[in-house]
Structures are given as structure tokens and as C-alpha cells.
């Protein structure tokens, strides 16, 4: 990506001194840029294409790397969708990703707003403390989380899977930064209009940061939808597996059933697509400024 960016800058700045030679060089720059982008695009799309292609194949054809199945079939979809285990996992994943998303959007912005708009003693230290947890990798946290879940009886429960992600330092940070763009005048006007602090946050500040909320919702949903390590560790029984964890077990039964794994994976991309389509329309810049100035 960075290379493509670099290439775009040079030709345009040369084009300012415009003549025919720089123009040709600009064309060359364009070509290289497009080729790089095309290569990147192909590299990213190919796994997805193979995923779909494999999900449409019979087992005998899985190891032929042909893109178009010779005998396309929807039998895998029937098998996967008809399997009760898949329904469990799908349900678990939906439940967990949805609840963590709602929780993050609510609590991250509540904390972010407080850190941003209330001047209380020690708020800077609180903010730094929250930020510093960003530097601890999940792998290090897994053991304390596990011990904690064990003591509190949260192992192999939905809550056990969800609790580490109900609030995230990243979300708090993101929301705090976005609330900085909400002018204090709005908040003070609402205070004079008689709203209490919670109402001000909810009905004045929150609508003004909708784009950030949408972005946060997408991040959190995708993050939890695809989370693997922690759900794998905290769950034991197949009914509690999430989709990513469950899908891997398709492989251990008799043999690696790639076509079923790929089918499950293909189906599991649907909710992420839907979430993205729902929220992306909120990601419109410059909403906040419209109420101010002339």
C-alpha cells in the first residue's frame, strides 16, 4: 500500500511543471500504480474466491485447484446448514458479537465522553492507565483471564467468552478523540436547556459522533466474530463453541473436510457483510460542524 501511495505523489507533483515528457512519465506511474493495486486486489480476493469455489465442490474435487468446479453442487450448504452444531456455533457467535458490540458502543463512549468533557482531578492518569493496557498482547492476558473464569465459574459459558471484550481500551481512546470534536457550546446549551448529564451525553453528544460509533461497531463486531484464541481456551463443550472454533473441529472427525469448512466459512462471512453494510452509511464525515458557524 505504502508503495502505491508514494508513486502517486511523485507523478502529480511533476505534472505541475507539465510538459509532454512528464505527462508520459505520469502515465507510466499510473500504469505501475494500477498494476500494484491490481496485484494487491487479486492477492486479497483469491482466498475468498477459493473459499466459495471449494464450498461448491464435491470432496473428490477439493484438491484440484481449479477455480470453477466441474460439478458445482449446493450439497455442502445443505449439509452444513442442516447440522445442529453449525446452528449452535452460529447462534453463539451472533449472540457474543452482538452483545459485545452493544456493550462497547455504550460503555466505551460513556467513558470516552467522561474523560473528554469532564475536568476532574486525575483524569489524565486514568486515561494513560487505560491506554497502557493497549500494549499488553492478548496472549499474555489469556492466563489471568482463564484463572479468573475458573474461580468465578465462568468457564464454558457465554459470559466467559464475552467478558474480556465488553469494554476495550481502544474503543475508549477512539471515542474520547471523537468527542473532542464536539464543541463545548453544544453541551453547555443542552445544560441550560435543562438536560441532565446523562441525557446530554445520550441525546446531544452521541448523535454527533455517529460516524465514530459506526466505525467502532464494525471493528468490535468483526473482532469478536473472528476471535479464536480465547473462545478456544475458555470453551469445552461443542455447544459453547463459536463459529471459528467450531469450524476447525469439522476437520478432526474422520478426515479434513475442507469443503465443509469452506462452506461454513463462506456462510460466516455473511453477517460481517451485513454489519458493514448497515453501519457504513453512518460513516459520513463532517456531520458535527453543520450546527456551528456560518
Amino acid at each position, binding site marked *: 500500500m505504502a508503495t502505491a501511495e508514494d508513486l502517486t505523489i511523485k507523478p502529480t507533483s511533476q505534472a505541475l511543471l507539465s510538459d509532454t515528457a512528464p505527462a508520459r512519465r505520469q502515465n507510466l506511474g499510473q500504469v505501475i500504480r494500477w498494476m500494484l493495486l491490481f496485484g494487491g486486489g487479486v492477492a486479497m480476493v483469491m482466498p475468498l474466491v477459493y473459499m466459495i469455489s471449494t464450498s461448491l465442490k464435491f470432496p473428490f474435487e477439493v484438491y484440484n485447484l481449479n477455480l470453477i468446479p466441474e460439478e458445482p453442487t449446493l450439497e455442502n450448504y445443505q449439509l452444513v446448514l442442516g447440522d445442529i452444531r453449525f446452528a449452535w456455533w452460529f447462534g453463539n457467535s451472533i449472540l457474543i458479537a452482538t452483545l459485545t458490540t452493544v456493550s462497547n458502543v455504550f460503555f466505551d463512549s460513556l467513558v470516552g465522553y467522561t474523560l473528554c468533557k469532564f475536568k476532574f482531578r486525575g483524569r489524565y492518569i486514568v486515561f494513560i492507565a487505560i491506554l497502557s493496557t493497549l500494549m499488553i498482547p492478548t496472549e499474555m492476558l489469556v492466563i489471568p483471564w482463564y484463572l479468573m473464569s475458573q474461580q468465578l465459574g465462568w468457564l464454558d459459558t457465554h459470559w466467559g467468552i464475552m467478558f474480556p471484550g465488553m469494554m476495550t481500551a481502544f474503543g475508549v481512546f477512539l471515542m474520547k478523540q471523537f468527542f473532542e470534536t464536539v*464543541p463545548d*457550546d*453544544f453541551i*453547555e*446549551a*443542552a*445544560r*441550560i*436547556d*435543562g*438536560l441532565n448529564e446523562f441525557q446530554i451525553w445520550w441525546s*446531544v453528544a452521541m*448523535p*454527533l459522533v*455517529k460516524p465514530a460509533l459506526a466505525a467502532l461497531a464494525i471493528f468490535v463486531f468483526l473482532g469478536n466474530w473472528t476471535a479464536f484464541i480465547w473462545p478456544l481456551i475458555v470453551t469445552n463443550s461443542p455447544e459453547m463453541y463459536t463459529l471459528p472454533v467450531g469450524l476447525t473441529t469439522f476437520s478432526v472427525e474422520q478426515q479434513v473436510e475442507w469443503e465443509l469448512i469452506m462452506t461454513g466459512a463462506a456462510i460466516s462471512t455473511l453477517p460481517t457483510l451485513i454489519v458493514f453494510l448497515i453501519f457504513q452509511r453512518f460513516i459520513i464525515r463532517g*456531520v*458535527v*460542524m*453543520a*450546527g*456551528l*458557524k*456560518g
Partner: protein
Amino acid sequence: MANLALRNLTKTYDKTQVLHGIDLAVEDGEFVVFVGPSGCGKSTTLRLIAGLEEVSGGEIEIDGRIVNNLEPKERNIAMVFQNYAIYPHMSVRKNIGFGLRTSGLPQAARTKRIDEVARILDMTDLLDRKPNQLSGGQRQRVAIGRAMVRNPAVFLFDEPLSNLDAQLRTQMRLEIKKLHQRVGNTIVFVTHDQVEAMTMADRIVIMKDGRIQQVGTPAQVYHKPANTFVAQFIGAPSMNMFEARVSAGQLTLANGSTLAAPVPLFGDRPVILGIRPDDLVAGGDAPLLEGRIEVLEPLGSETLAYVGVAGREVIAKASGRAPPAVGDSVSLSADPSNMHLFDAETGEALS
């Protein structure tokens, strides 16, 4: 009855004191304008009245109640901000009605009140629009509407016209003044623009460095400025100031001109003589100053002449129809009744 009273109001941020004892009583229905240079504490005063900041000392009384410990919403005030602060995600109707949310009025009464305010502000057609579909002037009217809808005891305006272009500003100035005549609520209006203050106010409060310099009607502060700061801040262009000396009832300027002191003064003391450009004219029997015209500023009905007098610049008024020419020598004089004398040390007016 005083509708708003400030008693020895002080405010300190961290260690810096920004207000040093503000005392003021505002009558019911009065239009009071706070004016002063940027940073003098106008907004702070307004925010203290609104309850957005806590007072460090003193008392605020609104409508006969001490409100020091009341929340903004309990103070029966409404405020219009410089940036309008109308919510971009709500229609004009919702914005105006926002202040009624906590009023406990039934829906029908609210709608009626919003329509009434919209009619007064001539915005009935705009009620369903979003703020980004409005011009700057219309947005400001929405902000005023939102303040009006609750019919507060006191309206607070913090430089509401600063973001508008010059023409619109003049127009809105007039609109707000008319509005005040119609609805009659008490208004406290903050501006750094002395023209705004002069044209709108019933009474002007001139502030500097967290202290009130003078309170009075526009005519009073213009004709009887309390000190050199007020004298130079009010009126454009600024009053000319000359060092002078009084002895035995005679006023002697630095250039040696003498005249009978316009106010009877005893003793022998240095003073400052102030004369507005409007009152300093060419000709006259007893010329005070002589100089050469350096620059002319034709303003139509009159012409401002910048006259070089003994190494400094003095502004005088000349005719608009038959202006003098640059380079002309002029002698300037003024009617003693239009002269202002100030103490050379304290800057206080002598009278």
C-alpha cells in the same frame, strides 16, 4: 424591580483572578450590553450568570432569588452562543422545541409555543429544515428561537453576531433590538464591538481587565466618559488625547496654546485633555493646534483628516462636500464644552 443583580462578583481560575468584584443591577426588561476588549472577562461574567461556571465570590440574584447554588436550568435564563450551538441532527422545529423537553408542557401546548416563536422570528417555512440547509443568519435566528421558547427571565447573548458578515450583522442587530421591544424580556448581551453596544443597549457596561469601568446609557458613556479608557474605547475613531497642564484656571497644551480650563480646577497639575475627532474642526477664532494634513479618509457625509501636529497624529473632522487637500496646513479648534479633562495619573475624568 431589579431583575438581575450581581454583587461583588469575583472569579478566579487556578491562581489568576479574572473578575475583580462586579456590581450591577439590571432592571426588568432592560437591554444591557457588556462591552470591552477581548479577554476582559465578559464571557466569564455571562457564564457565571448562566451557571456554567461557579462563582469564586459574590452573589447573583435573578428574579428575586439568589441563584449561586442553582443549576443552569433552574435559573430561568436562556443563552445564545457565538457558535449558535444548534444541533445539526435535529430539524429546526426540534431545535426550537428542545428547551421545552423538560418543561412538563403537554405536546399540543409545546407545538403552539414553537409555532408562535417561529412566527415572531419569521421562520415558519423553515421549521422542517435541518441546520445545514440554513444560512448563517437563519441559524442564528434558530438559536434565538430556542432561547425564546421558554420565555426566560433573562436572555444571555455571548457575541452572537461575530460570525456573521458585516451586512447581516447590521441587519440582525436591528432584528434583535426590535425583538426586544416586542417581547420585552431582560437581555444581557456581550460584545467586543462598541458600535453594537452603542446601537443596541439601553445601558452599556464597559469592562477592562475584569473590572467595570463605567455603566451608563450610550449617551452618557459617549458624552461623559468616566476615564480615558472609556473615552478611547467608545466612539470611532478614538478620542484624541493631549497632555496638558492646569494652573490658575488656565489650561496649557504642550505646544504652548492656552485656554480657560473647561472645568474649574485648583492648583497646578498635569492633566489629559480629550477631544473627539467630531469636535475638532478646522478654523475657529482660537485655534488650539496647527498642523499639516497627512491622510484623508472620505466617508461621504464627512471626511476624516489625519493631521500631523508636532510629530504626532491627530484626527479631525472636515466637510464631506468640500474636503481639504492632503498637504494643506490647518489650524484646529474645539468648543470648550466638548472637551474632556482627565487626571494625568489615574485617568479618571475631572469634573
